[in-house]
């Protein structure tokens, strides 16, 4: 773990709750007390109705694959990930509504096997002692 060389998030005072929940393997997102929508990424203001009446709530960790790409690994902007290539970057739409950027794991990086709309579930990846990432795998 000590030699993890890929980009890591640096939580800020507002987003720390999210990152702590992922580290605890029990993801929480903000939910708007006025329009009742879950939001992601964490914010100071609801992007749907403008309210500041936001509270942290647990989410199911279940969702569907909204879209994906397979990085073949020769791109300069993702040099720290080259050893992982090919790998899948995905947008997952949670059952609660919000979409998250993530990696799809537990499946071959093969576009004939990965289907937009497929059911996925969160897979917590403890990449360092401080940070865990919410990745997803097929159900």
């Amino acid at each position, binding site marked *: 773990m000590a030699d993890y060389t890929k980009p890591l998030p640096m939580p800020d005072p507002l987003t720390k709750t999210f990152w702590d929940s992922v580290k605890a393997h029990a993801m929480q997102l903000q939910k708007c007390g006025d329009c009742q929508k879950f939001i992601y990424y964490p914010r100071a203001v609801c992007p749907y109705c403008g309210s500041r009446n936001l509270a942290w709530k647990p989410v199911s960790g279940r969702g569907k694959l909204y*879209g994906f*790409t397979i990085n073949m690994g020769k*791109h300069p902007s993702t040099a720290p990930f080259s050893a992982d290539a090919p790998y899948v*970057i995905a*947008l997952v739409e949670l059952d609660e509504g919000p979409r*998250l*950027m993530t990696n799809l794991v537990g499946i071959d990086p093969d576009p004939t096997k990965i289907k937009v709309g497929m059911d996925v579930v969160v897979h917590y990846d403890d990449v360092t002692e401080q940070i865990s990432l919410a990745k997803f795998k097929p159900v």
Partner: protein
Amino acid sequence: MANNIAGKVAIVGVAESDQIGIVPDRSVIQLHAEAAHNALSEAGLTTRDVDGIFTAGVSPMETAEYLGIVPKFMDGTAVGGSSFVIHVGHAAMAIAAGLCSVALITHGESGRSRIGIGGFPQGAQTIRGQFEAPFGLPSPVGAYAMACSRHMAQYGTTSEHLAQIAVSTRGWASLNPKAMYRDPLTIEDVLKSRMISWPFHLLDCCLVTDAGGAIVLTSLERARDLKTHPVVVLGRGESIDHSNISQMHDFTSGPAKVSGKLAFDMAGVRPDELDLAMIYDSFTYTVLMTAEDLGLCKPGEGGAFFAKGRTAPGGVFPVNTNGGGLSYTHPGMYGVFTIIESTRQLRHDYQDQGIRQVKDAKLAVAHGTGGVLSSAGTVILGRA
């Protein structure tokens, strides 16, 4: 839509930098300045005539200082490759309102040779640093690729559909001496090229070049006394859908839907009345999605719209007649070149070059995309 802009302001000069493509002996600001000089010269104007300055990438301060311009109006809207198309609308508004009389839009990037460029820091505490960077999305290609995967799943769009766009665009590039790649291309060539970020092959992706571009606008009244045939700004629109690709509202439709409707409504023009379209082509999918959003075809029908060379030289609806970002030039923020080429087509600059000139061209749309399908600028231009 009530407005006091449409038809009142004209483009009177357009130009690239002295050279485009691989230009290892020119800095970013030098490319801005060369293009500015060339565009002003075409109109018979100099920097002394300019009182409005519009740019992105470098600040209006740097451009004004470098060129010795003391502007009365300035705009540094910087929302990626669409910026310079958006500037055309802003310049038209400023001139129509009497806030400046000669507007200069400048662009220049050393995308390939990296001479005199600034950096793009991406801190770990930013939104992108926290919620996107840890997952290794190649930028920007992966964002467009991910969006494209949804269109393919939802509408049955295929890699062959996308490849046809690259092939048709190369057809136009083969007629443009300034284009970087001019050799004929087949759908098979595109499909056999190296996969970069599925579903995008290398030849689904734009070039990386060095280039500058500039545009000069003034009132139609003043334009009549200048050297070039005026091209009139009939409509303009702009919008933003998102900044981070994970926040895009719908992977199959973007901000061009808003900017396009605003522009067409202001111009009082329907998409089927256009003679050509210049659509930002960072990737093949960018063109396909934008064509749908602009109403050139229906949602999901982009594949059919570009099929069988319909947009290629000799096709029924010319698109990207300079060879586009896919084959002509793409220094990073390509939008200015959609305006440059539209203007030249509407002036009939290519009339002695056979099929290169869109016959009797009177109406064009120029559209810029910025960020990762994030921002949009649309301009409808007409031959005065």
